[in-house]
């Protein structure tokens, strides 16, 4: 509630972050794995009988690699940072204040990575073989080093471990329980992706025999990763906090509805992506002729799909927090939420960005929506609140808000009865119903109990309210 909410219509700020992040994850992993690929290819190419031709091919790969990783990799990395500032300023502020020097070290790695890559690329024809191999090796080590650093901050958000707001132990937060499994998964994935990128460049080679050799070389990069990643994923899963596991496993809350839990979906996605990659690669190995640009890009897209699944899984697993157990997605601090007086007192007084709306109006409700819900829901686009409340009646809404926290994926509601009434009236107004928030206050509600959708008073919606395929679109 410290910051304004970037209220982007049908997308929601969170989805903007996700879109940029998904592109970045693929490219940044290719960027690291590609470094190892360059080292091995440097050595290998010089042992081939037709060395010059292989080196020309490697030069093409290096050009592609340079342009791709700098133009798309570096910029989307900065892009994630930009978008997170807009979507979760409070969280990025905490991360930056806590880990500023880790980030600064990360920057030293960026600077070195970039410079070494340029020396490698521009010296391709003039450096000695030893220098080229050394530069490629240095590039790989540095790029992997940048992964080692950023991985600490990324995993911190989901598993802060022994770090708490009272005891800010940087080392414990950085080398948190999720750190090593995640590092291993990312490392294996990046080798896999480097091989896939190799396919793409090899697909442009005309000479069949030569192309075959390059493809065989790339195959060895893909197969181990495609087999290992699902298993490592399971290990990572075992480090997650119990509440996250409950959410992902579907548990009692039925988060994503339907018959599949997020966990099952993820398992299926990982299995399908892994299997397709192995099969595709085997086909490539057996019939190098089939490797054309489209096929190579399709393989990258399959990998991208797997990564997307993993990232959504991670995001979903972190709900309702941005930083697990510390800060909720909508900027509410867990320590503040534990104080009932603070949580249940009138909201506008504490919120900063309400613009002085008159209390008890629809405008009041809109502010509450924006400041408390809009970080995860849009009105009627992505994770639409209109759709999710389509069966709400005025009476039900206010009571549901009192228990929304029990679903496990949402923060507790902040505010008093009037704040709830204003929000409910606003939500109803989005689908065209006009209600005066003041008419929804509990003391006026005694007469309106008849149309309650929650007959047993448990605060849980009727089964019909659970939303099938919620995550996917609406």
């Amino acid at each position: 509630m410290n910051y304004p909410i970037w209220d982007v219509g049908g997308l929601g700020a969170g989805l903007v972050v996700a879109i940029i992040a998904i592109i970045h994850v693929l490219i940044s992993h290719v960027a690291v794995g590609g470094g190892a690929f360059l080292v091995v290819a440097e050595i290998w190419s010089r042992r081939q009988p037709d060395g010059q031709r292989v080196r020309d091919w490697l030069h093409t790969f290096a050009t592609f690699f340079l342009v791709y990783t700098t133009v798309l990799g570096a910029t989307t990395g900065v892009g994630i940072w930009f978008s997170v500032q807009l979507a979760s300023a409070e969280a990025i502020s905490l991360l930056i204040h806590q880990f500023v020097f880790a980030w600064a070290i990360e920057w030293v790695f960026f600077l070195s990575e970039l410079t070494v890559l340029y020396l490698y690329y521009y010296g391709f024809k003039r450096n000695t073989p030893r220098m080229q191999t050394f530069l490629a090796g240095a590039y790989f080590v540095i790029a992997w080093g940048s992964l080692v650093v950023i991985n600490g901050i990324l995993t911190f958000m989901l598993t802060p471990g022994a770090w708490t707001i009272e005891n800010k132990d940087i080392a414990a937060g950085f080398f948190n329980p999720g750190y090593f499994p995640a590092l291993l998964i990312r490392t294996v994935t990046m080798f896999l992706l480097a091989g896939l990128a190799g396919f793409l460049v090899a697909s442009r080679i005309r000479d069949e025999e030569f192309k075959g050799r390059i493809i065989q070389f790339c195959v060895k990069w893909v197969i181990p990763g495609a087999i290992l990643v699902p298993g490592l994923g399971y290990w990572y899963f075992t480090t997650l906090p119990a509440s996250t596991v409950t959410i992902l496993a579907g548990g009692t809350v039925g988060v994503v509805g339907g018959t599949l839990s997020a966990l099952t979906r993820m398992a299926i996605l990982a299995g399908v992506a892994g299997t397709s990659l192995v099969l595709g690669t085997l086909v490539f190995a057996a019939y190098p002729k089939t490797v054309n640009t489209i096929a190579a890009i399709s393989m990258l897209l399959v990998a991208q799909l797997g990564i997307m699944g993993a990232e959504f899984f991670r995001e979903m697993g972190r709900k309702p927090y941005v930083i697990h157990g510390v800060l909720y997605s909508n900027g509410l601090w867990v320590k503040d939420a534990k104080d009932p007086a603070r949580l249940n007192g009138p909201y506008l007084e504490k919120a900063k960005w309400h613009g002085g709306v008159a209390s008890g109006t629809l405008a009041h409700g809109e502010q509450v929506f924006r400041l408390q819900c809009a970080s995860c829901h849009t009105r009627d686009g992505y994770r639409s609140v209109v759709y999710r409340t389509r069966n709400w009646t005025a009476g039900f809404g206010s009571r549901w808000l009192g228990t929304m926290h029990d679903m496990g994926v949402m923060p507790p509601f902040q505010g008093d009865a009037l704040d709830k009434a204003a929000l409910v009236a606003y939500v109803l107004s989005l689908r065209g119903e006009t209600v005066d928030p003041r008419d929804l206050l509990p003391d006026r509600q005694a007469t309106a109990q008849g149309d309650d959708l929650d007959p047993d008073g448990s605060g849980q919606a009727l089964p019909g309210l659970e939303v099938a395929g919620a995550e996917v679109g609406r």
Partner: protein
Amino acid sequence: MRLALAMAGVLAAATASGAGLPMPSPDPLGYPVPPILLQALSYFTLTLHFLAMNLTVGSVVIYLWLTITRKQYDDRLARYLRDLLPLSTSYLITFGIPPLLFVQVLYGQMFYSSSILLGFPWILVIPLVVFLYGAFYYQKLVKNPEHPGVLLLSVLAAMALLSVGFFFVNNITLSVSPEKWMGLYAKSPGGQNLNMDDPTLFARWLLILAPGFTVAGVAILFRGVMMLKWGLTEEGRHNHRIAVNAAVLGMLLEAVAGIWILSAMPDDLRSHVTSAGLAKLLLGLGTAMASVGLVLVFLGRYKASWAYPLMASLAFFLALAPLVALRDVVRIEQLRPHFSLENVPVHAQWCMAGLFAVFLVAGLVFLLALHMMVVPKLIAGRRAELRESA
């Protein structure tokens, strides 16, 4: 005067929301080291960022101009600038990261707020940078860079670059004007805003961009020296003529921008910049070093000596750094009614700071050593290439 500013702030707050400004509280974690260190790091890296940015802006404009006018030797100089662009863009981005990090540590609550209010142009920076960076690579790698389509692409890339600068200036100026926040937020909560009514906006934009010609001029001076040393006297002299013209043009524009921004500032801020000890010192130092730099460019004209372009580079660095610091002094003054650095607690992370210092020094030494091993060979190779084509 401070009182006047404070009063203005309070008044604006009263009219904006009726309930005080929506100023977020500083991060509860406080500063990881005393702010002066963060400021110093940010001045240093921001100066490098500005220099790389200036090199890119100046190079792309001069490149386009040379390609369109096409006098003798222009094409080869144009190619040099064209090849420089992806490189300078890389460093412009990379050196932009630390100042952006430190501004968030130091002034996060103001900076995040203004970024969110300008959310749309702010996020647009990313696709624009991807586009211009990609275009710069494309025109370097493509077989026929003088094709009108490619030239058009370069023009668009240059415009994208200028817009990115414009959006940054918008954000930075808005971050020191909390009294405008609520109004903009009400106007467009999706962040389709700009800080257009800031009186110093355009002057500031020019102030940031104008040295581009000067910095690119120094880069051309370097090339001229190389030509002269290689015995390509005519071409070297041609390069030096362009270098001097560009450097002078940049400084003239910068002087115009400087006068413009001073006259556009609110009176009390201007009197602070021109009379308060520290601000006056920084301004004087910047101006003096810039003049020294310009004189060095003049003296280096037609001389086959690295000393002049090297010393001119140093002089321009020393000219820019105090102005970057002055920029921060002005910000602190503008924020005084709402915020001051001294009020944020310091929870020192000396261990982490030390670790960073170790990495930084090790990284720089490593890169320097590599440069000394690789770059001379590259230059020699380039020389052979030029000989062949001459």
